[in-house]
């Protein structure tokens, strides 16, 4: 579309760029720094990863478990399991965050306090903790309730994509789905959420 507004002299160049870009991405995905170090179990790289991703993993665990102590344990276990399975970290052109979220899903789902049922995708009590500025307005509280009432598949997509801020690719990697599947589930989840809010 952008080629339509370009002058004719630049249109050919833009077309070349559009043609070259996919070839670059397919031929050689961007190698993120640190993946090799993480796979080689470099302590400094793992400490840096922990400092960078620990708050996000903690928030995810807190949103599922609703308890700060349990979220601490789960977060620590996520990084410990990640260290143990460092050799499974693949370079998919994504940051290690998606991989950590995938581990966090399993850790939270097998959490010892959930012997009889899995924890919800969004625990409403998780929004209560923290500082005063995290308090929810009535509208946001209704939104949080609607998300918590979604079916697990939809709630998980909404949580990962919009509350925890994962990209489509990261969400797909965390859920072991394709990007198109994530797009479709995302659309269905949002429509279901809207239906709940308007009901």
């Amino acid at each position, binding site marked *: 579309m952008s080629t339509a507004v370009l002058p004719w002299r630049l249109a050919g160049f833009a077309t070349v760029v559009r043609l070259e870009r996919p070839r670059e991405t397919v031929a050689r995905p961007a190698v993120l720094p640190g993946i090799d170090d993480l796979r080689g179990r470099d*302590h400094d790289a*793992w*400490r840096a990863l*922990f*400092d960078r991703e*620990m*708050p996000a993993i*903690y*928030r995810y665990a*807190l*949103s599922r478990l609703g308890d*700060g102590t349990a*979220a*601490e*344990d789960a*977060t*620590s*276990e996520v*990084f*410990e399991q990640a*260290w143990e399975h460092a050799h499974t970290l693949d370079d998919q052109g994504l940051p290690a965050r998606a991989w950590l979220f995938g581990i966090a899903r399993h850790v939270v789902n*097998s959490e*010892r306090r959930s*012997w009889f049922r899995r924890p919800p995708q969004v625990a409403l009590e*998780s*929004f209560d*903790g*923290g*500082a005063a500025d*995290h308090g*929810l307005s009535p*509208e*946001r509280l209704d*939104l*949080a309730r609607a*998300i918590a009432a979604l079916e697990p598949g939809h709630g998980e997509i*909404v949580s990962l*994509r*919009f*509350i925890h*801020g994962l990209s*489509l690719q990261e969400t797909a990697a965390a859920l072991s789905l394709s990007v*198109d599947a994530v*797009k*479709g589930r*995302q*659309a*269905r989840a*949002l*429509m*279901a*959420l*809207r*239906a709940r*809010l308007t009901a």
Partner: protein
Amino acid sequence: MESRLPETLVSPQLLDDLIEGRLLAAPRMGEAATLARLAADCRQLRLPGPDAFAATRMRRRYAAYLSGEHSGIGRWLFGWLGAGPLARPLRERLAAGVMIVAAAGGSASYATGITPLEAAGELGRLAASIAVNLDPRDGAGGELLIDLSATPTPAGTPASTTPAPTPFAALPGAPRDSTPTANSPAETAPGPSQDTPSATPAAATSATVTPTLTPSPTSSPAVPSPGTGGAATTPPSPTPTPPPTATPTPPTSTPTVGTTPTPTKTPGATVTPPTSTPTATATSTPARPPGDDGKPEDD
């Protein structure tokens, strides 16, 4: 049907472009724009992060983990037991326990050829045997007491004089085994006469035996108490050897010819003086009957 209708109207790709800001919402994108705004509202939901203390705890724990302070087996074992940060669900722990027990039992049965059921049966029998053998009633020697009490009869002959060649035997604290007549009826007879050097058979056998004994007043006291040895010391064997020498007669014990010895002597009084025992031995040894081999009964 109503829930499926919007799916046909909203393209997932278009919705994602709107959500990610790659497209600007147009008025004709009503449904998709609404969903995109809803997604933006969801992004406004903020979750609290870890406070400083929690972050410090997690960082310290992770540093300890990286430094290898926690061994893998120890952590796994703690988790299997239900403790520690890696606590496993109950079903996983039960499954692991069943697998461990099955593997151990299978390998043991393969190595030894004994099935776990047989091993359990053997263990039960071993426990029963231990319980029986460690029973204090058996330690007292119930059957042994009966057997020994029956023996005195033949040996109750003067050989039983067994004058305790060593002075230890007469000592109150000396072990009974030190006496040569360890199996003498005096020892086996229940009662206080155990410490005495077995003069009971002499009194029990017959009158003829009595003169053979030349014990000093101390050594002879083996007279059983009437309540204890009376029945047991009854002359079982009618073969008393006549005394070759009628030398001495016990001064006080006077194992009268009757079947029942005199109960005058108390066991405690008899044992006390150790000094007299050597004399008793010296005198008693020659007093044995000629027909006797001169050996103690045990031999």
